């Protein structure tokens, strides 16, 4: 029975649309996080002194501390953005797909 439902869902163009949109969104965000994080790791590995420089003349805030604090905040904001969109837009579409599969069955 489940297999039948799964096939109907898969045949629904909305399903293809959901998968495409959600995957694109998730991979874009993942790419941003991975690039920034491993970019930062590479700077730590190859050019550590640059991170000790102050962000402005006479400031105590260094580039490294500022960049990292911003990454903590930014990465968390990205998770919030993903959860917001996935729990509203994507989940609504998801419910439609399941409902339509049930309807087809009857």
């Amino acid at each position, binding site marked *: 029975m489940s*297999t039948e439902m799964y096939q109907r869902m*898969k045949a629904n163009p909305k399903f293809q649309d959901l998968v495409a949109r959600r995957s694109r969104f998730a*991979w874009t965000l993942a790419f941003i*996080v991975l690039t920034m*994080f491993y970019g930062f790791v590479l700077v730590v*590995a190859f050019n550590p002194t640059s991170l000790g420089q102050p962000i402005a003349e006479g400031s105590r805030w260094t580039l490294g501390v500022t960049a990292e604090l911003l990454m903590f905040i930014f990465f968390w904001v990205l998770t*919030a953005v993903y959860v917001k969109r996935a729990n509203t837009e994507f989940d609504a579409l998801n419910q439609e797909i399941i409902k339509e599969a049930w309807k087809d069955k009857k």
Partner: protein
Amino acid sequence: MMRNLLTSIALLGFSAATFAADAVAQTEKQATNWHAIIMFCIFVALTMGITYWAASRTKSTSDFYTAGGGITGFQNGLAIAGDYMSAATLLGLTAMVYTQGYDGYIYMLCFFAGWPIILFLMAERLRNLGKFTFSDITAYRLDQGKVRTMAAISSLTVVCFYLIAQMVGAGQLIKLLFGLEYNVAIFAVGILMMVYVTFGGMVATTWVQIIKAVMLLSGGTLVMVLAMSQFGFSFTTLLEKATSVHKLGDKLMYPGSLLKDPVTAISLGLGLMFGTAGLPHILMRFFTVTDAKEARKSVLYASGFVAYFFNVIFLMGLAGILIVGQNPEFFEGGTIGGKLIGGGNMVAMHLAKAVGGNMLLGFLAAVAFATILAVVSGLALAGASAISHDIYARVIMKGQASEATEIRVSKIATICLGAVAIVLGILFEKQNIAFMVGLAFGVAAAANFPVLILSMYWRGLTTRGALLGGYGGLISAVLFVLFSKSVWVDVLGNAAPLFPYTQPALFAMPVAFLLAFIGSKTDSTVRGKTDLEGFDDQWVRAQTGFGAASAANH
């Protein structure tokens, strides 16, 4: 010396316990700390009450393994944060910022960065496909018996290494913080853990974790606020003063020795990020929530708490440089810059005492004990479910076991794991266990994660590929650590390591992926064909959550 010690331990992987254990090992038992003991007893009484309540609600296997799937995203977020922030985080990272400054902050980002990735690529699929253990997902369309056996073996390997590290760390820490004997502490942790898990299952384990996370977050915040009030809440003032007195001077805010070698830096980043995504006790938490929506929210809350707390720790460590580092009261013999009383990991504790007196010190010590207890309970439950759900119910009984016997087996497994943990904790008391957590993360990243992610994303994965990849990752991670400096030289006493790097992830993960790929591609068996055919249904279920295990009604 402290600096080198910290660096070498830090490179191996991460855990409070490791950190704590190693630095604490050479220290003497402290005077009995009654504030801490009373506060810890209150915690135990409270959690025992919860366990009693939870026991009455733990009837089915689903209650036992996943709290009936009825935990909310917010509760689970706190519990995940609790699982993730061990005593190492509090003590080890504060100490690391205190001695190395900015390096500690880099380390914390490495620990944090895995969470968004888990959310984007794994969280909802885990919830949609899994039921009780992550092997439910890897074995979804593959040969149940063989794949579950493999996943259970690598889960148990991770759990055992992690347990040893936590138990030894617990014993050393409690000896130090509470002034109790090492063996007394080991038995206390082992027995309390058995009680929580056997009677209360996942419901009790989750609440122990939640209470501990709230205590940890509030205790840390209080210490940080009291400490920062001495600097007019100005980060600039704090930095200015800290760099002027610290022996590193301005270099305090530069990346130091921690990640100077690029291979180690990248391998560590990979190991921490993907090791987190392969830890059985963390993965299990995703099955406790109602649906994919709550699973996503769990990660949002968990990562928020973790990110917040890491920043609190950074401030605590910097404030410690001034408040603890400049106060002769906290040094042996009263010489500033000498050896800290109780060892390098005591910075957070001394800071609590300096800003909040014995009450706050007692509270923070109780939090550290509670933290270890909660992490150990989560590990034991994950290990027990691998034995009872995967090996007993699915492999031996082929799905024919009744719920009641399955629960009984998992309770027996918990007691056995508890006993094993106590015995190993005592055996390893004098050993250098610093490599254990590195090994646990390495195995998680190389054996669990590749097969798990491939089973969800790659249609072409077959049973043969999964087995080759899983066992290959497990064996190579263990061998890389065995031949590295941390075991080959430091434990076995050989002159030079056979493998030059201490972090296995960068090398063992490709081995696992490659073997899984080759094993699947060359697979022309009938089983292999069935495996591929199962992917479509699994894919639709992973995406939509239709047919996913639902929350029990109660």
